[in-house]
């Protein structure tokens, strides 16, 4: 369980929110021209990153507005919250030393030193 600071309502429990999955997936401009593989890529394939991931969230049991979060999925730390339509932010800090060591928080990875904003 973690807390999320809704840009519109302030800090609330994660259970008030719904995760809309990976952010910045652009809807294809020319749907009729897409091959089946391109459709599959758009519809189904996900980066599913261990580390800093950009995600869409909705305050579904609150103001019901959407926003983006940069979150370290290895530790569940929220690094930055930014508006829909904004470019993904640069997050400074160390990436994971190996793809899957053990962390101090959570138990997915070697502790990272990403800057929180």
């Amino acid at each position: 369980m973690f807390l999320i600071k809704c840009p519109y309502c302030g800090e609330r429990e994660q259970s008030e929110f719904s995760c809309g999955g990976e952010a910045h997936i652009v809807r294809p401009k020319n749907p009729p021209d897409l091959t089946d593989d391109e459709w599959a890529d758009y519809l189904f394939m996900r980066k599913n990153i261990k580390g800093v991931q950009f995600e869409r969230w909705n305050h579904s049991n609150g103001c019901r507005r959407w926003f983006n979060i940069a979150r370290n999925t290895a530790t569940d730390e929220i690094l930055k919250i930014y508006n829909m339509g904004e470019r993904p932010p640069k997050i400074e800090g160390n990436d994971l030393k190996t793809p899957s060591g053990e962390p101090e928080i959570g138990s997915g990875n070697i502790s990272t030193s990403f800057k929180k904003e």
Partner: protein
Amino acid sequence: MHKKPKKYSVFSLIRNAVSYHENWQPVWRSPEPKKEYDAIIIGGGGHGLTTAYYLAKNHGLTNIAVIEKGWIGGGNTGRNTTIIRSNYLWDQSAALYEHALKLWEGMSQELNYNVMFSQRGVMNVAHNLHDVRELKRRWHANRLNDIDCEWLNREQVKEFCPIINTSPNIRYPVMGATLQRRAGTARHDAVAWGYARGADAMGVDIIQNCEVTNINVKNGQVTGIESTKGSINSKRVGVVTAGHTSVIANMVGIRLPLESRPLQALVSEPVKPVIDTVVMSNTIHAYVSQSDKGELVIGAGTDGYTSYSQRGGFNIVEDTINAVVELFPLFSRMKMLRHWGGIVDICPDASPIVSKTHIKGLYFNCGWGTGGFKATPGSGWVFAHTIANDEPHKLNAPFTINRFSSGELVDEHGAAAVAH
């Protein structure tokens, strides 16, 4: 080749009792990795170990290594609620899971290792009209596929599991249930240890505390791996890393439709036997059985976001406990002893991917999500076939990565709702 392990029997038990159990031989060796293998399996969970076992046993490939970043069975294999059943809706899934269930039935004998497989039955409870229709549909589909399944009305549910609350006045009343009598539970660690012992006896190297950090590919052909114990060469690499599959896939730019999420479970203090079957409810996301130690084993639904942290939210646990207590009021004062999470790899159609890739010699076995423990022996069986022949077995042919392009999804989400 090293010497064969001694067979376990009542005589070996007595013999070792006389020497205060200090002379048992190790169950498997702990070798250093060789420079090269005929095949490398990444991930020492149940699925990775059965893959190695059947590669050796069914395909005569014994120069192989299982590479595990932690200890074998320390992933979802050792974290799950051990429900085993084969009553899936679609023909493709039914065939795959039923093949696995048949292997469970002979497993302890075959391995000479007691995996405590207990066919105590699994009951899937219906709480509303929609559930009744879905479950009856599944019951009929199962019968067409020769899978044992029965429909129980409310009175029969009460008779089969007397402690369940069948009052019509609760929030989610029991309106009936399907029952698969051949379904049940097993001891998860024993499955990992038994297959490790069996594979080791045929010459498979089980290498623990060794993390794979990269996959080497040359001209579209896999050539080996990089690991925390150095480079190891092999022209065949099978990836069986459950929640961490995308981490490996991202090393070689393979795109997969997976999302890794926490799935939680908990056990209570041990009590005398009160429930001799497994009760599952998809609608209210709760399932319960009792271990041989007497603990209630309770499973929840997934947390709704990507995470590799191996822990989830308390709200999920609370929802599950609410449901369990309503169905079983006599559990309301029990104390919970332990609570944990595993990271499960969820596929959009809630079916696994057991598949070749566009890189020659690189194979993936993943997407089992919340329900792969039951498939452990069958998954290894078909994946070994796929790796040995560079072609899928007929049972895993429908479960390729390509189904997401062709549209031939095996949609078990709607059918099984919670696919444990």
